[in-house]
């Protein structure tokens, strides 16, 4: 894995072939061109111009009342020009094309990231969302001008209700965490309307995503942690200890972050309801249930979906996603506004909901993302939806069964859509950690699994293949994991120094946090 230093002549050849600018010296060859856009800036260059420049003077009219001038009044004008790059269009295209090649993506790499559901993002979704009729529509456009989008949103909500067994859905939240925020606000409004102000606690298992307690705290609730039982499930006895007339919501991820279904959900939901609490389902792992199980049947009162997980919308390097909150009947009046209504074949936006929590963002929601999710749903019948979950579960169990002989599994049961493994003793004996295995995987072109999560499993390696990966890809990943174990056992340094083939070696995160350099 060592890189040979190219000879000077070879460097010149590389430089000529790459058409690098004269500012790049031959000494830079062999190193990645990691200059920032601003470092490529050449004063006077332009990437785009605006020539449609109207002015008040041209108008010929005279204003009746009010000033209509395009001159910036004294004291309001910007003093110093912003330090932005000055580049030609080609400079910009080449810069960002080059950077794009320094990134893993589902299009190019397998991403077995547990709890992230990195499935393939169908290209028809992109084409649909980019249709001018959708993308050019102003959020305050008259309802009469927006019938296509409103019909889509209405039907999407309806399909999600059917899929989840819920009475109503809002599509306003922009992401999963934003959905949790919306869901807990709805719970808060519900208890306020009941006059039950004593319910200040949110119970989450210790296997929960960090967003669950963070959301609870953000809304002024007190998060209460319950310990997972030895099999990774909620222990009803422990839950009983923590449930009280102070409990507002029991938040569960189903299946949980260990990839395990809460088999005693009926009893658990029943206990929560008897204590007067609501049951919230974090739908991050809904890919395991789609078309197989309706969360509404499990006693769930509020749940969220992540379109960028279950419904194939792209992750975009960290967003935008889109969320959604489904609720049972008695909670519908609290959903954010506007709601989409249908009457007599026409669709309207409706703000008249006095008990609504209000708005969690401006306008409707991440409609461009929802459009992609809708296209995906159109392409799946009832049976095909179940096929998503079935194949996600099959794939996860296949990988688990092939890997667990070497990488011990946290749970001996069959898993749902993901499984949690741990590093083998042969590696830990050499001082190697999950992180070293993860970094070595990058050298083989595989994105690392989710690591060190859930927090309750020491050195966790959390694997979720999704239904869109083939047996060959999974086999290749498994062989690589097995090879890495052998490499680590014989040459531990190879793993400790990994990755070797990426644009950079391991990075100094301590320095990054101690002396933050966050901008040019």
């Amino acid at each position: 894995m060592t890189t040979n230093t190219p000879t000077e002549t070879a460097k010149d050849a590389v430089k000529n072939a790459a058409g690098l600018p004269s500012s790049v010296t031959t000494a830079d060859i062999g190193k990645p061109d990691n200059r920032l856009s601003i470092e490529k800036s050449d004063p006077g260059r332009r990437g785009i111009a605006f020539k449609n420049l109207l002015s008040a003077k041209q108008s010929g009219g005279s204003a009746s009342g009010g000033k209509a001038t395009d001159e910036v009044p004294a004291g309001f004008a910007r003093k110093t020009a912003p330090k932005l790059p000055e580049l030609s269009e080609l400079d910009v295209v080449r810069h960002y094309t080059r950077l794009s090649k320094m990134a893993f993506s589902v299009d190019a790499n397998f991403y077995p990231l547990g709890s992230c559901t990195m499935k393939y993002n169908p290209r028809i979704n992109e084409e649909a969302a980019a249709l001018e009729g959708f993308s050019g529509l102003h959020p305050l456009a008259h309802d009469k001008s927006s019938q296509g989008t409103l019909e889509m949103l209405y039907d999407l909500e309806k399909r999600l209700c059917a899929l989840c067994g819920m009475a109503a859905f809002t599509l306003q939240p922009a992401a999963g965490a934003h959905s949790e925020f919306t869901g807990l606000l709805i719970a808060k409004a519900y208890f306020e309307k009941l006059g039950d102000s004593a319910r200040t606690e949110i119970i989450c298992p210790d296997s929960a995503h960090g967003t669950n307690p963070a959301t609870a705290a953000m809304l002024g609730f007190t998060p209460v942690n319950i310990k997972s039982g030895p099999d990774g499930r909620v222990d009803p006895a422990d839950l009983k200890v923590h449930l009280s007339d102070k409990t507002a919501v029991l938040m569960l991820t189903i299946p949980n972050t260990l990839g395990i279904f809460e088999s005693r959900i009926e009893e658990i939901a029943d206990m929560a309801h008897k204590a007067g609490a609501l049951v919230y389902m974090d739908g991050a792992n809904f890919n395991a249930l789609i078309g197989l199980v309706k969360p509404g049947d499990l006693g769930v009162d509020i749940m969220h979906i992540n379109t960028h997980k279950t419904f194939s919308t792209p992750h975009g390097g960290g967003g935008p996603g889109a969320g959604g909150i489904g609720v049972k009947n008695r909670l519908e009046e609290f959903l954010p506004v506007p709601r989409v209504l249908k009457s007599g074949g026409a669709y309207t936006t409706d703000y008249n909901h006095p008990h609504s929590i209000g708005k969690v963002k401006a306008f409707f929601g991440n409609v461009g993302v929802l459009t992609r999710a809708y296209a995906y749903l159109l392409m799946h019948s009832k049976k095909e939806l179940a096929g998503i979950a079935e194949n996600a579960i099959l794939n996860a169990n296949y990988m688990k069964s092939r890997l667990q002989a070497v990488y011990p599994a946290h749970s001996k049961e069959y898993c749902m859509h993901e499984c949690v493994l741990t590093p083998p003793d042969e590696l830990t004996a050499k001082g190697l950690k999950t992180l070293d295995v993860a970094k070595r995987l990058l050298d083989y072109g595989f994105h690392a699994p989710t690591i060190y999560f859930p927090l309750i499993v020491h050195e966790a390696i959390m694997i979720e293949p999704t239904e869109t990966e083939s047996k060959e890809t999974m086999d290749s990943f498994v062989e690589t994991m097995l090879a890495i174990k052998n490499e680590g056992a014989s040459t531990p340094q190879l793993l400790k120094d990994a990755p070797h083939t990426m644009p950079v070696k391991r990075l100094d995160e301590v320095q990054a946090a101690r002396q933050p350099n966050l901008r040019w």
Partner: protein
Amino acid sequence: MFIPTTQKDQEEMLKTIGASSIKELLKQVPAKYLYPAFDLPETSLDEQQTARHMKNLAAANTPALSFLGAGAYERYIPAAVKALISRGEYLTAYTPYQAEASQGILQTIYEYQSSVCALYAMDCANASMYDGASAFGEAVRAAVRVTGKKKVLCQETLNPQYLKTLKTYFANSKDYQFVTIPQKDGLMDTDKLSAMLDSDTACVAFQTPNFFGLMEDAHKISQTAHAAGALVVAAADPASLGLFSPPGEYGADFAVGEGQALGLPLSYGGPYLGIFACKKEYVRQMPGRIAGMTKDKDGKRGFVLTLQAREQHIRRDKAASNICSNEALCALSATIYLALLGPEGLKELGLANAGAAAFAARKLASVKGAALKFKGSFFNEFVLNVSCDAARLREKVLAKERIDIGLPLKDLYPALGPGALLVCATETKTEEDILRLEKALRENI
């Protein structure tokens, strides 16, 4: 199509697992919950049918020549922006937690943060938030955290969508006091502001241009707030910042904005881009992701996500916010947009907007029965007062001429009367477009 597993693959995999069927893999799910009845279609569409269906739906939207603004603006999106963000490498990447395999994404975030800092003249910025309204809510939350005070002064002419969102960001709680600073002639009444500020005030939160399109005297507002010991949270339209003072020049502590203005499609309200920046002393109060420059172990420049001790996946209930994602692809659009424009292009964009709006204002104010409502300077939108009911006029002109004349303000600001109309003209509007609007008003008022 999307599932590659054949019958044969499935059999082989089940054999390896040692299970007889997929059903067996589901035994931890109580049988009564499995395969319930779903009220969903028995059949699905193929790709071609889906494409047609979506095309028909898109065609059922009947966009008009639109003069709507009010927080979302029609923009020309350069072809290079669209081409670059469609690259699968960007589109289908995950959050760059594995830094070595995500240097390209991380560098674009660093460049985004830098561009935002340059544009807003602020010390630091995060990797972006959901939209302008939620960024505004988070900024006021940060100001409340920093000061430990619970009273927030907001301008009367704040975008009502922002105000609603702000309240949910405080859990609609009665523990916090949101006080409205009245407007006078469409602008914040700074004399009243002075009188309202007290030692319990966490911050003065305002936007400029304000909801009526008018440029607030941000320098004066900021000085007045700071003199009373309150922080300043300013929301500024990034497209205006090539011409107008950025928040850093008037000393804002937190600056936010709706990044949709930087080359993102309208898409009926999202996905947009929440711009969030602050003074350096508050960097550890910033919510959300932040990328930083560092070195690898060979001393080579590299980028990582940093200051993660503020975030939910580390701090859980002690985190600065619950936010877990950013609008990375939208931030990338904005970064590329700004790189194409550069400082000169940004100024030109500002002039194109201000020019179109000023031209429209002059033309429309010359129509009988129409006049500008306020005297102040505006950027790319303004309130026009018409002598009839603006909402009815909008319906009429939309039906007859396929022109959306703007947003009637009666429901949001009843005090302005039934004739108040918020009209916006950005760089996308030509002389001909504006003359069409003028004619339509002339004929229909």
